[in-house]
Protein backbone atom coordinates (compact mmCIF):
# COMPACT_ATOMS: atom_id res chain seq x y z
CA UNK A 1 0.00 0.00 0.00
CA UNK A 2 1.10 3.54 -0.66
CA UNK A 3 2.77 5.17 2.33
CA UNK A 4 2.33 8.70 1.05
CA UNK A 5 0.19 10.40 -1.55
CA UNK A 6 3.34 10.70 -3.68
CA UNK A 7 3.48 6.89 -3.84
CA UNK A 8 -0.22 6.54 -4.60
CA UNK A 9 -0.77 5.01 -8.02
CA UNK A 10 -2.93 7.61 -9.73
CA UNK A 11 -2.81 5.63 -12.95
CA UNK A 12 -4.79 2.75 -11.53
CA UNK A 13 -8.19 2.04 -10.08
CA UNK A 14 -8.43 1.48 -6.33
CA UNK A 15 -10.71 -0.24 -3.88
CA UNK A 16 -12.58 1.86 -1.35
CA UNK A 17 -10.17 1.29 1.55
CA UNK A 18 -7.30 2.53 -0.56
CA UNK A 19 -9.25 5.67 -1.39
CA UNK A 20 -10.07 6.26 2.29
CA UNK A 21 -6.36 5.77 3.13
CA UNK A 22 -5.43 8.20 0.41
CA UNK A 23 -7.74 10.81 1.93
CA UNK A 24 -6.24 10.35 5.39
CA UNK A 25 -2.71 10.59 4.02
CA UNK A 26 -3.52 13.76 2.13
CA UNK A 27 -4.93 15.36 5.28
CA UNK A 28 -1.93 14.24 7.38
CA UNK A 29 0.53 15.58 4.82
CA UNK A 30 -1.22 18.92 4.38
CA UNK A 31 -2.79 19.79 7.72
CA UNK A 32 -2.97 23.50 7.07
CA UNK A 33 -4.71 23.09 3.73
CA UNK A 34 -6.76 19.91 3.80
CA UNK A 35 -9.18 18.54 6.35
CA UNK A 36 -11.66 15.71 6.27
CA UNK A 37 -15.29 16.21 7.18
CA UNK A 38 -17.50 13.18 7.72
CA UNK A 39 -20.91 14.38 6.61
CA UNK A 40 -22.79 11.16 7.33
CA UNK A 41 -22.91 7.44 6.78
CA UNK A 42 -23.98 5.31 3.86
CA UNK A 43 -26.75 2.74 4.27
CA UNK A 44 -24.16 0.06 5.08
CA UNK A 45 -22.42 2.33 7.57
CA UNK A 46 -19.50 3.58 5.57
CA UNK A 47 -18.32 7.14 6.21
CA UNK A 48 -19.24 9.83 3.70
CA UNK A 49 -16.02 11.81 3.57
CA UNK A 50 -15.59 15.28 2.18
CA UNK A 51 -12.14 16.76 1.73
CA UNK A 52 -12.09 20.43 2.52
CA UNK A 53 -9.36 22.50 0.91
CA UNK A 54 -9.22 25.78 2.76
CA UNK A 55 -6.63 28.44 3.49
CA UNK A 56 -8.56 29.80 6.44
CA UNK A 57 -11.42 32.07 7.26
CA UNK A 58 -14.85 31.05 8.40
CA UNK A 59 -17.72 30.01 6.21
CA UNK A 60 -16.01 31.13 3.07
CA UNK A 61 -17.80 30.72 -0.23
CA UNK A 62 -17.20 27.21 -1.45
CA UNK A 63 -17.08 25.14 -4.60
CA UNK A 64 -18.47 21.63 -4.26
CA UNK A 65 -17.12 18.84 -6.46
CA UNK A 66 -18.41 15.29 -6.25
CA UNK A 67 -17.34 12.10 -7.96
CA UNK A 68 -18.52 8.53 -7.69
CA UNK A 69 -22.27 8.99 -7.35
CA UNK A 70 -22.84 6.16 -9.83
CA UNK A 71 -20.64 3.41 -8.55
CA UNK A 72 -19.69 1.76 -11.82
CA UNK A 73 -18.25 5.01 -13.15
CA UNK A 74 -14.81 4.20 -11.76
CA UNK A 75 -13.08 6.89 -13.75
CA UNK A 76 -14.74 9.53 -11.57
CA UNK A 77 -13.26 8.75 -8.12
CA UNK A 78 -9.98 7.93 -9.85
CA UNK A 79 -10.04 11.43 -11.33
CA UNK A 80 -11.10 12.79 -7.93
CA UNK A 81 -7.91 11.46 -6.33
CA UNK A 82 -5.85 13.11 -9.03
CA UNK A 83 -7.74 16.41 -8.53
CA UNK A 84 -7.12 16.28 -4.78
CA UNK A 85 -3.40 15.84 -5.25
CA UNK A 86 -3.34 18.48 -7.96
CA UNK A 87 -4.89 21.03 -5.61
CA UNK A 88 -2.23 20.55 -2.93
CA UNK A 89 0.56 20.56 -5.51
CA UNK A 90 -0.66 23.69 -7.25
CA UNK A 91 -1.62 25.80 -4.26
CA UNK A 92 1.09 28.41 -3.83
CA UNK A 93 2.52 27.65 -7.27
CA UNK A 94 -0.31 28.09 -9.73
CA UNK A 95 -1.52 31.71 -9.48
CA UNK A 96 -5.07 30.95 -10.61
CA UNK A 97 -5.66 28.13 -8.15
CA UNK A 98 -3.94 30.08 -5.40
CA UNK A 99 -6.24 33.04 -6.02
CA UNK A 100 -9.26 30.76 -5.85
CA UNK A 101 -8.20 29.15 -2.59
CA UNK A 102 -7.26 32.48 -1.06
CA UNK A 103 -10.90 33.50 -1.40
CA UNK A 104 -12.91 30.30 -1.53
CA UNK A 105 -12.87 26.73 -0.23
CA UNK A 106 -13.07 23.64 -2.36
CA UNK A 107 -15.10 20.71 -1.05
CA UNK A 108 -14.49 17.34 -2.70
CA UNK A 109 -16.56 14.24 -2.06
CA UNK A 110 -14.61 11.54 -3.87
CA UNK A 111 -17.04 8.67 -3.36
CA UNK A 112 -20.64 9.74 -2.97
CA UNK A 113 -21.92 6.16 -3.09
CA UNK A 114 -19.38 4.04 -1.20
CA UNK A 115 -21.64 1.01 -0.76
CA UNK A 116 -22.23 0.83 -4.46
CA UNK A 117 -18.55 1.38 -5.18
CA UNK A 118 -17.56 -1.45 -2.84
CA UNK A 119 -20.19 -3.64 -4.50
CA UNK A 120 -18.68 -2.99 -7.93
CA UNK A 121 -15.36 -4.29 -6.63
CA UNK A 122 -16.74 -7.36 -4.92
CA UNK A 123 -20.01 -8.48 -6.48
CA UNK A 124 -21.19 -6.70 -9.59
CA UNK A 125 -18.88 -4.52 -11.63
CA UNK A 126 -21.82 -2.89 -13.41
CA UNK A 127 -23.74 -1.75 -10.31
CA UNK A 128 -24.98 1.84 -10.47
CA UNK A 129 -27.32 2.46 -7.53
CA UNK A 130 -27.12 2.59 -3.74
CA UNK A 131 -27.42 -0.65 -1.76
CA UNK A 132 -30.46 -0.04 0.44
CA UNK A 133 -33.10 -2.77 0.15
CA UNK A 134 -36.50 -1.72 -1.16
CA UNK A 135 -39.39 -2.95 1.00
CA UNK A 136 -41.71 -5.21 -0.96
CA UNK A 137 -39.21 -5.77 -3.75
CA UNK A 138 -36.34 -8.15 -4.29
CA UNK A 139 -34.52 -5.40 -6.15
CA UNK A 140 -31.99 -3.32 -4.25
CA UNK A 141 -30.97 0.29 -4.40
CA UNK A 142 -31.95 3.72 -5.61
CA UNK A 143 -30.44 5.81 -8.36
CA UNK A 144 -28.80 8.55 -6.30
CA UNK A 145 -29.04 10.93 -9.22
CA UNK A 146 -32.82 10.71 -9.29
CA UNK A 147 -33.35 11.03 -5.53
CA UNK A 148 -33.06 14.81 -5.16
CA UNK A 149 -35.95 17.12 -4.47
CA UNK A 150 -36.12 18.76 -7.89
CA UNK A 151 -39.01 17.61 -10.01
CA UNK A 152 -38.84 14.45 -7.92
CA UNK A 153 -41.13 11.73 -9.18
CA UNK A 154 -41.88 13.32 -12.53
CA UNK A 155 -40.92 11.98 -15.96
CA UNK A 156 -37.25 11.20 -16.29
CA UNK A 157 -36.99 8.67 -13.48
CA UNK A 158 -38.58 5.35 -12.63
CA UNK A 159 -40.91 4.26 -9.88
CA UNK A 160 -39.85 0.64 -10.31
CA UNK A 161 -37.23 -0.51 -7.77
CA UNK A 162 -35.84 -2.92 -10.34
CA UNK A 163 -34.94 -0.16 -12.78
CA UNK A 164 -31.54 1.49 -12.96
CA UNK A 165 -33.18 4.90 -12.64
CA UNK A 166 -35.39 4.08 -9.63
CA UNK A 167 -35.96 7.36 -7.83
CA UNK A 168 -36.62 5.92 -4.37
CA UNK A 169 -39.75 6.24 -2.23
CA UNK A 170 -39.29 9.91 -1.36
CA UNK A 171 -36.88 12.71 -2.17
CA UNK A 172 -33.68 12.43 -0.13
CA UNK A 173 -34.63 8.96 1.08
CA UNK A 174 -31.02 7.86 0.62
CA UNK A 175 -28.64 8.79 3.43
CA UNK A 176 -25.93 9.39 0.84
CA UNK A 177 -28.06 12.20 -0.63
CA UNK A 178 -29.66 13.48 2.57
CA UNK A 179 -26.21 13.92 4.08
CA UNK A 180 -25.14 16.18 1.22
CA UNK A 181 -28.39 18.14 1.36
CA UNK A 182 -28.06 18.69 5.11
CA UNK A 183 -24.41 19.63 4.78
CA UNK A 184 -25.00 22.10 1.96
CA UNK A 185 -27.96 23.72 3.67
CA UNK A 186 -26.03 24.06 6.93
CA UNK A 187 -23.05 25.49 5.08
CA UNK A 188 -25.19 28.04 3.30
CA UNK A 189 -22.43 29.55 1.22
CA UNK A 190 -21.84 27.08 -1.60
CA UNK A 191 -21.49 28.85 -4.92
CA UNK A 192 -20.99 25.95 -7.29
CA UNK A 193 -21.87 22.28 -7.55
CA UNK A 194 -19.82 20.32 -10.05
CA UNK A 195 -21.05 16.76 -10.17
CA UNK A 196 -18.86 14.38 -12.11
CA UNK A 197 -20.14 11.34 -13.99
CA UNK A 198 -19.05 9.23 -16.94
CA UNK A 199 -19.29 8.54 -19.85
CA UNK A 200 -20.24 10.31 -23.16
CA UNK A 201 -18.20 13.51 -22.97
CA UNK A 202 -20.74 16.15 -22.09
CA UNK A 203 -20.94 19.22 -19.90
CA UNK A 204 -24.50 19.83 -18.78
CA UNK A 205 -26.29 22.54 -16.84
CA UNK A 206 -29.88 22.74 -15.50
CA UNK A 207 -32.48 21.75 -16.16
CA UNK A 208 -32.96 18.03 -16.55
CA UNK A 209 -36.52 17.71 -15.28
CA UNK A 210 -38.06 20.53 -17.27
CA UNK A 211 -37.52 22.13 -20.63
CA UNK A 212 -37.85 25.56 -19.01
CA UNK A 213 -34.61 27.45 -19.42
CA UNK A 214 -32.54 28.21 -16.36
CA UNK A 215 -32.58 31.93 -15.70
CA UNK A 216 -28.79 32.02 -15.95
CA UNK A 217 -28.74 29.90 -19.09
CA UNK A 218 -26.79 32.39 -21.17
CA UNK A 219 -23.96 32.67 -18.67
CA UNK A 220 -23.93 28.93 -17.97
CA UNK A 221 -23.83 28.21 -21.68
CA UNK A 222 -20.97 30.60 -22.37
CA UNK A 223 -19.00 29.29 -19.43
CA UNK A 224 -19.58 25.68 -20.53
CA UNK A 225 -18.26 26.58 -23.96
CA UNK A 226 -15.12 28.07 -22.42
CA UNK A 227 -14.67 25.03 -20.17
CA UNK A 228 -14.94 22.46 -22.94
CA UNK A 229 -12.67 24.52 -25.17
CA UNK A 230 -10.01 24.51 -22.48
CA UNK A 231 -10.57 20.79 -21.93
CA UNK A 232 -10.14 20.05 -25.61
CA UNK A 233 -6.93 22.06 -25.79
CA UNK A 234 -4.98 19.21 -24.18
CA UNK A 235 -5.87 16.14 -26.25
CA UNK A 236 -8.65 17.32 -28.54
CA UNK A 237 -11.35 15.47 -26.62
CA UNK A 238 -14.68 16.68 -27.96
CA UNK A 239 -17.50 17.48 -25.57
CA UNK A 240 -21.07 18.48 -26.23
CA UNK A 241 -22.65 21.00 -23.91
CA UNK A 242 -26.03 22.45 -23.05
CA UNK A 243 -28.95 21.89 -20.74
CA UNK A 244 -29.39 18.32 -19.55
CA UNK A 245 -32.83 17.84 -21.03
CA UNK A 246 -31.69 19.04 -24.45
CA UNK A 247 -28.36 17.29 -24.66
CA UNK A 248 -28.86 13.96 -22.93
CA UNK A 249 -32.41 13.21 -21.79
CA UNK A 250 -35.09 14.15 -19.35
CA UNK A 251 -33.80 13.32 -15.88
CA UNK A 252 -35.82 14.34 -12.85
CA UNK A 253 -34.55 14.47 -9.27
CA UNK A 254 -30.95 15.07 -10.24
CA UNK A 255 -28.16 16.76 -8.30
CA UNK A 256 -27.62 19.91 -10.32
CA UNK A 257 -31.30 20.78 -10.69
CA UNK A 258 -31.64 20.62 -6.93
CA UNK A 259 -28.51 22.70 -6.44
CA UNK A 260 -29.63 25.31 -8.95
CA UNK A 261 -33.04 25.56 -7.32
CA UNK A 262 -31.28 26.20 -4.02
CA UNK A 263 -29.72 29.29 -5.59
CA UNK A 264 -26.38 27.72 -6.47
CA UNK A 265 -25.89 29.32 -9.84
CA UNK A 266 -22.89 27.42 -11.13
CA UNK A 267 -24.32 23.91 -11.23
CA UNK A 268 -22.85 21.56 -13.79
CA UNK A 269 -22.65 17.87 -14.50
CA UNK A 270 -19.72 16.42 -16.36
CA UNK A 271 -19.83 13.20 -18.32
CA UNK A 272 -16.18 12.22 -18.67
CA UNK A 273 -14.50 10.09 -21.31
CA UNK A 274 -15.10 8.06 -23.36
CA UNK A 275 -17.13 8.12 -26.54
CA UNK A 276 -18.35 4.60 -25.92
CA UNK A 277 -15.55 2.30 -26.90
CA UNK A 278 -15.10 1.18 -23.31
CA UNK A 279 -18.03 2.71 -21.45
CA UNK A 280 -17.68 2.05 -17.73
CA UNK A 281 -14.54 -0.03 -18.11
CA UNK A 282 -12.34 2.71 -19.39
CA UNK A 283 -8.75 1.36 -19.27
CA UNK A 284 -6.64 2.57 -16.36
CA UNK A 285 -4.10 4.13 -18.68
CA UNK A 286 -6.77 6.72 -19.52
CA UNK A 287 -7.22 7.90 -15.92
CA UNK A 288 -4.52 10.54 -15.87
CA UNK A 289 -5.30 11.95 -19.33
CA UNK A 290 -8.96 12.12 -18.37
CA UNK A 291 -8.22 13.81 -15.06
CA UNK A 292 -5.80 16.26 -16.65
CA UNK A 293 -8.18 17.42 -19.34
CA UNK A 294 -11.11 17.59 -16.92
CA UNK A 295 -9.03 19.68 -14.55
CA UNK A 296 -8.67 22.33 -17.25
CA UNK A 297 -12.44 22.57 -17.51
CA UNK A 298 -12.83 22.67 -13.74
CA UNK A 299 -10.26 25.44 -13.53
CA UNK A 300 -12.08 27.44 -16.21
CA UNK A 301 -15.28 27.20 -14.21
CA UNK A 302 -13.64 27.89 -10.85
CA UNK A 303 -11.76 30.91 -12.18
CA UNK A 304 -14.98 32.32 -13.58
CA UNK A 305 -16.72 31.83 -10.25
CA UNK A 306 -13.86 33.49 -8.44
CA UNK A 307 -14.05 36.47 -10.77
CA UNK A 308 -17.84 36.67 -10.60
CA UNK A 309 -18.63 36.16 -6.96
CA UNK A 310 -22.31 36.59 -6.22
Amino acid at each position, binding site marked *: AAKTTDDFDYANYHVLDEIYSFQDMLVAENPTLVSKIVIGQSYEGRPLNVLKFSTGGTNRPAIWIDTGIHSREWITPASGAWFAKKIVLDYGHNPALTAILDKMDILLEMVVNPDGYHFTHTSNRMWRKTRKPNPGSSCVGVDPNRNWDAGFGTAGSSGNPCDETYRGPTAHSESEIKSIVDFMKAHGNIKAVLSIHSYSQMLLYPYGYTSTSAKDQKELHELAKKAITDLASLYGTAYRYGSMINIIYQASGNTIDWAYNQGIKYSYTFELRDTGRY*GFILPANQIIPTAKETWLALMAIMEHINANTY
Partner: protein
Amino acid sequence: KKTFVGDQVLRVFAKDEVQLTVIQDLSEMKQLQLDVWRGPTDVATPMDIRVPFHSLMSVKAYLEARDVQYTIMIKDLQADIDKEERQMQRSSY
Protein backbone atom coordinates in the same frame (compact mmCIF):
# COMPACT_ATOMS: atom_id res chain seq x y z
CA LYS B 1 -20.42 -12.64 -7.66
CA LYS B 2 -22.17 -11.59 -10.83
CA THR B 3 -20.32 -12.36 -14.02
CA PHE B 4 -20.89 -11.06 -17.51
CA VAL B 5 -19.59 -13.98 -19.55
CA GLY B 6 -20.75 -13.63 -23.13
CA ASP B 7 -22.54 -10.34 -22.51
CA GLN B 8 -21.98 -7.85 -25.25
CA VAL B 9 -22.33 -4.10 -25.42
CA LEU B 10 -23.99 -3.01 -28.62
CA ARG B 11 -23.90 0.44 -30.12
CA VAL B 12 -27.17 1.06 -31.91
CA PHE B 13 -27.69 3.79 -34.49
CA ALA B 14 -31.09 5.21 -35.36
CA LYS B 15 -31.21 6.74 -38.82
CA ASP B 16 -34.50 8.58 -38.29
CA GLU B 17 -37.21 9.27 -35.74
CA VAL B 18 -39.01 6.03 -36.58
CA GLN B 19 -35.93 3.98 -35.78
CA LEU B 20 -35.40 6.04 -32.66
CA THR B 21 -38.81 4.92 -31.45
CA VAL B 22 -37.91 1.34 -32.35
CA ILE B 23 -34.82 1.39 -30.16
CA GLN B 24 -36.62 3.24 -27.40
CA ASP B 25 -39.14 0.42 -27.39
CA LEU B 26 -36.30 -2.07 -27.28
CA SER B 27 -34.76 -0.41 -24.25
CA GLU B 28 -38.04 -0.81 -22.38
CA MET B 29 -38.43 -4.56 -22.96
CA LYS B 30 -37.95 -5.79 -19.41
CA GLN B 31 -37.79 -9.46 -20.34
CA LEU B 32 -34.53 -8.89 -22.21
CA GLN B 33 -32.85 -7.57 -19.03
CA LEU B 34 -30.95 -4.92 -20.95
CA ASP B 35 -28.70 -2.48 -19.17
CA VAL B 36 -28.84 0.81 -21.02
CA TRP B 37 -25.41 2.42 -20.75
CA ARG B 38 -26.36 5.36 -22.88
CA GLY B 39 -29.98 5.96 -23.63
CA PRO B 40 -31.67 6.68 -26.93
CA THR B 41 -31.93 10.46 -26.96
CA ASP B 42 -31.80 11.68 -30.53
CA VAL B 43 -30.87 10.48 -33.98
CA ALA B 44 -27.37 11.93 -33.68
CA THR B 45 -26.53 9.99 -30.55
CA PRO B 46 -26.20 6.21 -30.66
CA MET B 47 -27.57 4.06 -27.88
CA ASP B 48 -25.19 1.76 -25.99
CA ILE B 49 -26.76 -1.27 -24.36
CA ARG B 50 -25.30 -4.16 -22.43
CA VAL B 51 -27.09 -7.24 -23.63
CA PRO B 52 -26.97 -10.38 -21.47
CA PHE B 53 -25.78 -13.43 -23.37
CA HIS B 54 -29.22 -15.05 -23.20
CA SER B 55 -30.83 -12.06 -24.92
CA LEU B 56 -28.25 -11.51 -27.64
CA MET B 57 -30.04 -13.43 -30.38
CA SER B 58 -33.36 -11.77 -29.65
CA VAL B 59 -31.93 -8.28 -29.62
CA LYS B 60 -29.91 -8.72 -32.79
CA ALA B 61 -32.88 -10.27 -34.57
CA TYR B 62 -35.11 -7.41 -33.42
CA LEU B 63 -32.70 -4.82 -34.76
CA GLU B 64 -31.95 -6.60 -38.01
CA ALA B 65 -35.62 -7.19 -38.74
CA ARG B 66 -36.19 -3.45 -38.51
CA ASP B 67 -33.08 -2.54 -40.47
CA VAL B 68 -31.53 -0.79 -37.49
CA GLN B 69 -27.76 -0.58 -37.67
CA TYR B 70 -25.59 -1.65 -34.77
CA THR B 71 -21.99 -2.46 -34.00
CA ILE B 72 -20.50 -4.60 -31.27
CA MET B 73 -18.81 -2.16 -28.93
CA ILE B 74 -17.59 -4.77 -26.43
CA LYS B 75 -17.49 -8.38 -27.63
CA ASP B 76 -17.24 -10.11 -24.26
CA LEU B 77 -17.71 -7.85 -21.30
CA GLN B 78 -16.36 -10.37 -18.78
CA ALA B 79 -13.09 -10.61 -20.70
CA ASP B 80 -12.62 -6.86 -20.28
CA ILE B 81 -13.57 -6.98 -16.62
CA ASP B 82 -11.09 -9.84 -16.04
CA LYS B 83 -8.42 -7.79 -17.73
CA GLU B 84 -9.24 -4.82 -15.54
CA GLU B 85 -9.08 -6.97 -12.42
CA ARG B 86 -5.72 -8.47 -13.41
CA GLN B 87 -4.37 -5.00 -13.98
CA MET B 88 -5.51 -3.86 -10.53
CA GLN B 89 -4.01 -6.95 -8.88
CA ARG B 90 -0.69 -6.45 -10.67
CA SER B 91 -0.61 -2.85 -9.61
CA SER B 92 -1.53 -3.68 -6.03
CA TYR B 93 1.11 -6.45 -5.90
